[in-house]
């Protein structure tokens, strides 16, 4: 009896709604999420899992041997070179972060509050993005003729008689690294801060002025607190980019300075993949905790 009824009802259904694939509601939403899940799974989760797995493997000059060793971590964390390199990278990060934050804030502030017309705002904003039409490497390398021993800056200063001999620390120094990094990354600060500043209700500034606030007080008590989410998003960009940088450090320091990513690159060129993987996991944890710290200080949910 039961089988008959089901087959009957099945028949009726196909008759009333022919060629209609009925998908249960819950399944539909899962299906909709699948493409993104697959992309993230293949290109994000899987590689990271691989790195984590490989970081526990054994290796020698000839090959990798699946294993479960903490040796790679012990080597990485136990070596003073690692600590020194991390400190150096952190130093770059802090310097670049502080510089991009202050430059980025003032550029965004000028764009948002002192440029009157929207057209001009957009034009100036696009001007900021023009350097991004060329590659990172080219922008970095173009500093070399400017900063070199016989470069633009040195020769100009000598011509003017301001210095007797070229300044040595302009190129292939920490100064050059920080300068290039600030140049490369400031826009990542400008954009989110500009975005938050544009969202500030202008009547808040009038209200503050009505309450007797001076320009500086408005900046400190109203604009800066309201710009915090944008500053946090920009900081996340800059911190993660600088922590993972190796090309800028290599080119601009002339190989005299080290960064964590550069250390990994060297390990990989020596085929020490598990060591590099362990290093990568440590770096990932450090960067993630820095991002977590930023998010703890500033609530960025309103901006997303």
């Amino acid at each position, binding site marked *: 009896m039961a089988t008959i009824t089901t087959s009957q009802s099945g028949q009726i259904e196909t008759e009333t709604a022919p060629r209609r694939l009925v998908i249960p509601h819950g399944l539909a939403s899962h299906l909709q999420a699948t493409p993104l899940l697959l992309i993230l799974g293949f290109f994000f989760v899987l590689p990271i899992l691989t790195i984590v797995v490989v970081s526990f493997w054994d290796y020698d000059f000839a090959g990798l041997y699946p294993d479960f060793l903490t040796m790679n971590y012990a080597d990485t964390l136990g070596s003073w070179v690692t600590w020194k390199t991390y400190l150096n990278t952190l130093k770059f990060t802090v310097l670049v972060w502080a510089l991009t934050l202050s430059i980025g804030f003032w550029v965004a502030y000028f764009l948002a509050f002192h440029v009157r017309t929207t057209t001009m705002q957009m034009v100036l904003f696009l001007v900021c993005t023009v350097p991004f039409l060329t590659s990172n490497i080219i922008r970095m390398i173009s500093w070399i003729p400017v900063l070199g021993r016989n470069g633009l800056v040195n020769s100009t200063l000598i011509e003017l008689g301001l210095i007797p001999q070229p300044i040595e620390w302009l190129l292939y120094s920490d100064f050059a690294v920080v300068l290039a990094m600030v140049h490369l990354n400031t826009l990542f600060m400008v954009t989110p801060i500009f975005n938050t500043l544009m969202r500030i*209700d202008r*009547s*808040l500034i*009038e*209200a*503050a*002025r*009505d*309450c*007797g*606030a*001076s320009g500086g*007080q408005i900046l400190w*008590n*109203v604009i800066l*607190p*309201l710009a915090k989410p944008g500053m946090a998003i920009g900081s996340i960009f800059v911190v993660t980019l600088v922590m993972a940088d190796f090309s800028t450090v290599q080119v601009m320091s002339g190989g005299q300075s080290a960064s964590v990513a550069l250390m990994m690159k060297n390990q990989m060129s020596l085929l020490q993949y598990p060591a590099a993987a362990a290093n990568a996991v440590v770096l990932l944890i450090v960067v993630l905790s820095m991002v977590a710290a930023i998010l703890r200080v500033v609530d960025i949910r309103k901006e997303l």
Partner: protein
Amino acid sequence: MSKAAEIDIVSVSKIYGSTTAVHSISLKIPAGSYCCFLGPSGCGKTSTLRMIAGHESISSGDLRLGNVVVTDFPPAKRNTAMMFQSYALFPHLDLVDNVAFSLKMKGVDRDARRAKALDMLKLMQMEAYGSRRPAQLSGGQQQRVALARALITEPEALLLDEPLSALDPFLKIRMRAELKKLQKTLGITFVHVTHSQEEAMALADLIVVMNNGRIEQAAAPRMVFERPATAFVARFMGDHNVLSGKVRAITDSIVEMETAEGQVFAVRDIAQEIGRPIDIGIRTDRVRLDPPSDKGLGFQAVVSNIEYRGASVKLTAIGAGSDDFTLIVSDSDYFRKPVSVGDAVSLSWTLEDVVPLGRLSA
């Protein structure tokens, strides 16, 4: 709490580039009065308020508050406080800090300013919410906080920019009553910008009707209602029908106005010359569905719409060059002798219900 200031506006203009938002207006707002600027959007009422507040520079003319000419003073030096349309509460500060903001700017130390802010919140019955953020409040509560923030500086005049427009109709009426009560308690001058006649009538001691950057009429509500100065005021307040024509004859201080269609209406004299164009206003609630008793006090019309409003019925009729001549009849009068759309009816009124309307010299 503090002394109120008289506000004296002396031929003040506001010019933005090539457009003039406010045309050389002059007005005295008595100390301690509740003044409403009323007009359609773009009439210059908000510009005027912002010039009084100091958030907009005065292109020409002078502004006096109390005994001080404040034309070029910054907002905070004027002893005025402004309440913004969207309240402009600082979203990153709790209510106490919002209210205490101006004291913080003056450098009052933290405990003293928070104590004073709490007192202000108490006055507004908001002390229980002190540690909340503005986003956690309803519209009416936000308004109370904005009031507290504006009043903590003990201003001589409070300037309100469409303060009730963000509220739902029910709350509007409640907050309106609160505003009026507050003004009475504090005794300071309130200047309130609105586009709602009802709001202005309910609140104001002095209604200033503005249009196209000019003051059409500045008078007590009853005066504005009963004796609108211009056709614009009569139309905007909505209680008068406006008929236009030319002066045909003047006899015994009664002016006869002839419309373009050749109908003649009578109105009391207002120093007119024969041939000059004039407008007259006829109270909608005084028009009756009876044949006119006297020449020039009624006409034949065709009913075009009927709206039942409970205690009264609103009829719209076409005739005498007007296609929305409105009359409000009481329900008992209407149902004694009902009419329907398309009926020809006689409309009439008495001479007392007709007001002559002036024209602004442009």
